[in-house]
């Protein structure tokens, strides 16, 4: 029972007692009244006491009720707060659910990141940016023992440094950008040149499109053999040196690809290209073939076209080594309607420790009102790694010997005329124009014999391989005496040239392909 109800019961009982007492007082005889007076007074006092007690209790109860009321009010306030907080939470939840379903909807209706990446040929997240290239330092000693009809000559001993960084940027798995800058420090200062800058788009398994400035895909030399660490010798073979038979580079577009026609390794491949065409230092017979020409170059109002085919007849499984046979042609208009035609054949064979390669090239050029300009050039070379050799001199010596590759190369150029002005201004392969005249340059020994109309050279090499692309190369060049020809000046004056001087040169080079 609650304390309030108990007290209410007491109150009722007290009231009943008072009423009974009053009735008794009126109805009982006066005698009895006197007797009972004392008892009544006592009872009255008790009733009064009880009444006081009851009043105090009531005051206390009011207080308690008041407090309880306050508590209830407080609780009601808190409940209201909770309710509103709850409502806030609820509305936030509904919002989130709405957002989630909205995003879900968007994801379902559009392609997923994976689908997107597949749709774009895995375009995303496959970028690769890489710097490779080559660097080298070399020393050249050239006797320059004989003069060519009054050309100045003197002994040379020269240090040269060359750095050719290459940037490869691969935005996705079928596109590559390649750019090579050739920088050199030589006897006459520093030079820089943009060697290549092209895009390679591998459209499918049989077709790659290359666009930009590229090495001439004619033959093997320019494209596949000219980098310092790739070329087994320090110098370039004669037909790719100072008086090249075909231009070293081209600005245009190539289509190329390859396929297997027989057993594994029996491949065939093609390269065709169109570009700005050939240009020459001067419109005279024997003038130097120029580097890639700008579109509006006055000498080439027509384009140049080229094609190169290679075939590999040996199956890999036969273990007969790898043989490559190639044929190239490059034809262009130059000087408006005049023709430049060239063609060449080449081979490359390696088996075990032996590798050998060679090329033959020929060019014919129309000269308006003058003699036609014919050139032939060739080289053949062989090298043998001594890595399989064991000499009876202990392991230390064998370790050194087994890193050696002895080499030999024979190269030559035939041309009836040489433009004498080119000798003073000649530049080396891929160089930034730092070479002048008979001063040696990377890839050139500086011998006057190189500028002879009929030059022949035997190069003996000894390479010390530190790693597959780190090598210390040594070369001894012997220029062989050969028939003379004619020097032509810019104004057309012709002077006969005597036999080629019998010159010697030594070149040593440390180079890294990285």
């Amino acid at each position, binding site marked *: 029972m609650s304390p309030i109800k108990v007290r209410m019961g007491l109150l009722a009982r007290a009231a009943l007692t008072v009423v009974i007492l009053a009735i008794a007082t009126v109805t009982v005889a006066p005698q009895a009244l006197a007797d009972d007076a004392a008892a009544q007074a006592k009872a009255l006092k008790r009733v009064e006491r009880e009444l006081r007690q009851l009043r105090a209790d009531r005051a206390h109860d009011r207080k308690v009720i008041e407090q309880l009321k306050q508590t209830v009010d407080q609780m009601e306030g808190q409940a209201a707060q909770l309710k509103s907080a709850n409502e806030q939470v609820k509305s936030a939840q509904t919002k989130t659910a709405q957002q989630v379903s909205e995003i879900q909807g968007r994801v379902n209706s559009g392609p997923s990141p994976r689908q997107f990446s597949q749709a774009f*040929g895995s375009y995303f997240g496959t970028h690769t940016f890489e710097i490779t290239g080559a660097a080298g330092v070399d020393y050249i000693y050239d006797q320059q023992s004989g003069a060519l009809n009054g050309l100045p000559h003197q002994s040379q001993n020269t240090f040269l440094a060359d750095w050719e960084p290459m940037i490869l940027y691969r935005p996705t798995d079928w596109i590559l950008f390649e750019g090579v800058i050739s920088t050199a420090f030589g006897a006459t200062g520093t030079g820089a040149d943009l060697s290549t800058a092209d895009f*390679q788009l591998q459209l*499918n398994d049989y077709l*790659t499109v290359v666009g930009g400035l590229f090495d001439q895909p004619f033959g093997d030399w320019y494209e596949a053999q000219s980098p310092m660490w790739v070329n087994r010798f320090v110098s370039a073979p004669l037909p790719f040196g100072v008086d090249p038979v075909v231009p070293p580079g081209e600005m245009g577009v190539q289509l190329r690809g390859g396929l297997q026609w027989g057993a*594994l390794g029996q491949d065939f491949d093609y390269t*065709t290209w169109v570009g700005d065409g050939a240009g020459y230092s001067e419109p005279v017979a024997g003038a130097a073939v120029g580097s890639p020409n700008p579109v509006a170059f006055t000498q080439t109002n027509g384009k140049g*076209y080229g094609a190169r085919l290679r075939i590999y007849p040996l199956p890999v499984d036969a273990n007969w080594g790898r043989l490559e046979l190639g044929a190239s042609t490059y034809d262009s208009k130059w000087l408006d309607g005049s023709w430049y035609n060239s063609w060449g054949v080449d081979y490359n064979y390696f088996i075990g420790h032996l590798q050998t390669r060679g090329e033959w090239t020929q060019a014919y050029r129309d000269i308006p009102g003058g003699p036609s300009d014919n050139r032939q050039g060739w080289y053949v070379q062989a090298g043998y790694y001594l890595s399989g050799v064991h000499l009876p001199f202990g392991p230390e010596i064998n370790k050194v010997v087994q890193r050696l590759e002895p080499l030999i190369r024979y190269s030559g150029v035939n041309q009836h005329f040489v433009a004498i002005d080119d000798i003073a201004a000649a530049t080396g392969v891929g160089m930034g124009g730092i070479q002048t005249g008979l001063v040696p340059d990377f890839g050139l020994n500086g011998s006057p014999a190189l500028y002879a109309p009929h030059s022949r050279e035997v190069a003996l090499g000894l390479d010390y391989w530190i790693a597959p692309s780190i090598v210390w190369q040594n070369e001894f060049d012997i220029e062989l005496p050969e028939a003379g020809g004619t020097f032509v000046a810019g104004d057309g004056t012709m002077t006969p040239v005597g036999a080629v001087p019998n010159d010697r040169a030594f070149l040593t080079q440390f180079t890294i392909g990285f």
Partner: protein
Amino acid sequence: MRKLLFALLFAGLALGPFCGPASAADQMSKAEKGKLFLLGAQLWPTYCNQCHNARPGSEFSPQEWDAIMIHMRTLSNMPAKDARAIQEYLKGGR
């Protein structure tokens, strides 16, 4: 010559689907990848010694090989399937 160029362009486009060549390797099963790796190991000493000394897989990271192999396939014109095999082999070098 011009006609030959166009004929080659169209023949090339007709021969194969217009697609990224290496992406096919990403979707291969383990067994197929293993076969490709073995073929690459067989071809590497032959194809990659042709112009210069063969460079080992450990020289570059797999990502770097992805870029280099586009370059080398362009230069050598080697069959695309063989280039993919060598690429798989070289990428296992690191």
